[in-house]
Every structure is written in C-alpha cells, then in structure tokens.
C-alpha cells in the first residue's frame, strides 16, 4: 500500500517536473527568437537619451486653459466608462437570458449560440473593438463607449448567465404554475434574486472600465488617452506629462475608493 502511494507520488512529481521543463523551454525559446534590443536600451548613451526624454516631462503644463481641457477629457473618460458599463449591463442581461437554462423544462435552444457570442465579445479586448469601430463611428468618445460596451457585455453576460442558472427555481416556478407570463416571472421572481450579483458585478466592471477608458483613446477613441497620444505625437512633452498625471490620479482615486468600499462592505 505504502509502496503504491509512493509510486503514485513519484509519478505525480515527475509530471510536474516535465511541465516545469516545458515552461523553461518556452521562456528560453521566447528570449531566443525575439530580437530584443537590450543593448540599445541599457547602453550608456541610451540611458542619457532616456534621461533627457524623462527630463522633457518637467515641469508639467499647468496653465489654466490646458488644465480645463484635461479636466474635460477626464470627465469624458468617466462618462465613457459609466455609459459603456450601463449599456453592457442591459445588453448583458438580454443575452444572458437565452444563454442560460433557467428551469428544468427550459429547452435553452439558443444556449450554445448565445454563449459563443458572449465568448467572442469577451475575448476581443476593448482597444481592438475601438480600433474596429472607428471605421463605422468615426473618431471620438462614441466608438470608445461602444467598444467598452461590447467587451463588457461579453464579460457581464457570462457572469449574469451563471447567476441566472444558480438562482433558486422555486419562486419562478410558483408564479409560472399560476400562468404568469414569462416576462413577469423574470421581473418579479428571477431578477430580484440575482439583483445583488448584477449590481456588484456591474460595479466591479465599471471600476475596470474606468482604467480601460483612460487608455482606450490611444487609437483615437476619446478621453484622456486620445489627448495623450495627440500630444505625444506632437512631442509636446509637458502637455503629455499633465495628461499622464491626470490618468495616474484617476486610476489611484478609483483604486482607493474601491479599496475603501471593499473594506466597508466586508466588515
């Protein structure tokens, strides 16, 4: 008995060794094949260039009109993230309904299709969506909002579908046997049950989306990111530095608020 256990243990250990060996091979191959320019990055004159580059960021542009524009871009970023998340929450519930099997006699015909759609929406990052949507919606915050909405729909839809399947079927069944219509069953039995999860998932994604919205503009989709890439492209380093500061402050504020909220809620 003991010998057998030892053999199983030894085999399991060796499996892990092979996996680790594979990972090491992956890392070596990755470094081997990429033409990384460490020399250009770490050579003394490169360091001097970099120091000069960093020096150009100081002092940040702090004139009143520029600060006003940065503040506007910051509000735009916030609005993009809020609206994008809201649209995503609504669409997420709409797609989550066909993507879940809510009761035993629910045929869930469209489940594979809806799940596939959610996965596709989710696996394409916001920034890629934004780059694609620029073709249809032009430059500005609107394609950015849509991009956030599409990616987040994928994420939230999947989470909502899981909440729907985990909801207790009792209340819905009680209404259904009385002949209440499906819409009302959802509104008065299922939705109230999953509501706390819907709210907390949505808030969590909003937090992520504020961070995402800040950089989304790099491809031209509005907010702080668009200002950043604009001034960086014109080599206006002092302006760039102000925008960067605004971004860092925004992210830090969101982090701090969410930390405080979490502490409050978990106490």
């Amino acid at each position: 008995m003991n010998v057998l256990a030892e053999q199983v243990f030894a085999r399991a250990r060796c499996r892990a060794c092979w996996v680790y060996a594979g990972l090491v091979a992956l890392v070596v191959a990755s470094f081997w094949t990429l033409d990384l320019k460490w020399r250009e990055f770490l050579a003394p004159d490169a360091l001097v260039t970099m120091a000069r580059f960093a020096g150009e960021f100081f002092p940040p542009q702090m004139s009143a009109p520029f600060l006003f524009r940065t503040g506007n871009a910051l509000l735009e970023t916030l609005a993009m993230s809020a609206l994008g998340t809201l649209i995503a929450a609504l669409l997420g519930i709409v797609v989550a309904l066909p993507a879940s099997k809510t009761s035993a006699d629910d045929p869930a015909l469209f489940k594979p299709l809806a799940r596939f759609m959610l996965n596709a929406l989710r696996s394409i990052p916001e920034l890629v969506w934004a780059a694609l949507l620029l073709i249809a919606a032009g430059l500005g915050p609107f394609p950015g909002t849509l991009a956030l909405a599409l990616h987040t729909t994928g994420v939230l839809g999947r989470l909502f579908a899981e909440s729907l399947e985990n909801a207790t079927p009792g209340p819905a069944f009680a209404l259904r046997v009385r002949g209440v219509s499906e819409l009302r069953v959802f509104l008065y039995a299922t939705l109230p049950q999953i509501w706390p999860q819907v709210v907390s998932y949505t808030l969590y994604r909003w937090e992520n989306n504020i961070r995402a919205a800040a950089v989304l503009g790099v491809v031209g989709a509005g907010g702080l990111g668009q200002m950043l890439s604009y001034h960086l492209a014109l080599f206006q380093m002092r302006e760039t530095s102000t925008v960067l500061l605004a971004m860092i402050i925004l992210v830090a504020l969101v982090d701090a608020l969410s930390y405080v909220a979490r502490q409050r809620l978990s106490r």
Partner: protein
Amino acid sequence: MTAVAASYDPAWRGRVGVLLLAAVLLWPALVWTEFKPWEVFDAQSLKSTGRFLRDFVPPRHDPEFLHLMLLQTWRTVAIATDGLVLAFLVAVPLALVSSAQMSISSLSGRMARGPYALRQTARWAAIVLRSIPELVWALLLVRVVGLGPTAGVIAIGITYGGMLGKVYAEILESGEAAGTQALLRNGAGRLQAFFYGTLPQCSTELVGYTVYRWECAIRSSVVLGFVGAGGLGQELDNATKMFAGAEVSAILIIFIALVAIADRMSAWLRKELG
C-alpha cells in the same frame, strides 16, 4: 378582485422614480460621450462599413499570409512570456522586501521604524508601477527604444511587475505566520525561513496567480501591438487602417483561438502545478 387589480405593482411609484432619476443623471454622460448612434447609420458611413464587412468573408488564407500570421502569433506569445519573466524578476524582490512575515524585529513587539519604512516603500513602489497601464509605458518606450518587441516586453515587465509584487506580498502575508516565525526565532536566516516556512504553504496560490497573469499578458501583448510593439496587434492595426477586411477577420479568428487556447492552457497548468 379584477384582473387589473391583480396585476398592479404596489412599488411602481418608487421604480419609476428611480428610473427617472437615473435618466436625469445619465443625460450629461450622453452629451459628454457624443452619443449619437444615428451617425453610424448615415449613408456614407454605412457604405464604408458595409464594404469593410463584406470583405470579412472569406478570411484571407493563402499560405504566405498564414505563415506570417503563425510567426506573429508566436511573437505575441513570446512578448507576453518575456514580459512576464521580467515582471517576475521585478516582483520577487519587491514581495520579499514588503512581506511583514520576514520581519525579525516584529518577532518581539512592534516592527522597528527603519524596516517598517523600507517595507512601506517597497509596497508603494509596487502600487506605483502597477498604476500606469502597460499601454502607456509601451507608448512612451516606443519613443526610446524604437518600434518592436522590446518596448512591449519592458512595458509588460513594469506594470505586471507591480501587480505580481503586490499580489505576491498579499499571498505571502495571508499564510500562517507561526512556522516562519518559529524558524526565525530559532536562528534561521530570512531566506531559509522563507523557503521552508512561508513558501510551501503559498506555492500553489503563487503559481496559480502567475499563470493567470501569463494569460492576461497574452491578451495585453496583442493590444500593445497597436502602439507599435509588434506581433498580432500590429498586423491587426495595419490591416484595419488599410480597410483590409479579409485580413482583419482572419486575424480576429486567430486571436480568438489564441485566447481560447491560452485559457485552456492556463487552466490545465494550474491543475497540473497545483
């Protein structure tokens, strides 16, 4: 009771009120984001979108293109892997320095002031590194090291270094401190105490989180391609700018497949190494 009374919702006033309030709050957001969906449907925009989308089918699949894509997919994975290795090298010292379990002075009463300051500095360093998105680092680094994977690798290394450092430290501190402290009290060195006291309890969680971040890094390295860090993202960016629908759809399919495979791989690795 009539049918009308039976379908009456006693809370409708509150619900409608909340919805109205939400609509009022939403209004500025709609203005700020220039939310004009109808512009998407004007004739000119529809024409260009239509042409772009018609090109999607069939996706481009000649051998030459597929060979290039294979190469770029590998580069995307390699950028993510190298970036994560760099991040690991940044994160390990940060986590070791900031973990309070390694403190010798706190074995007897409060932690001494110097080590406390050092730990807080390391903790803040991790938070600062992580608070600037990797895309911004890449954007800046492309100016310094030029176009190519180097900027992407360093960008992932910096941001993920901060993330890993912060989370590693949290995981190390969440473990039971008794074993580590007993070792430290009996004169073990800090590294000995770490390897024999702390690490064995936390290794599964540490490996799991690292593998999860590797998966995130792959997604992120595609995005970094958009600012010129090479790989699939750069190809996608070029194809989009040239309105090459067939190429865009091919790259999107490859990308979705890559993410799905990375997802499976990471789940499998976590199971295998856990």
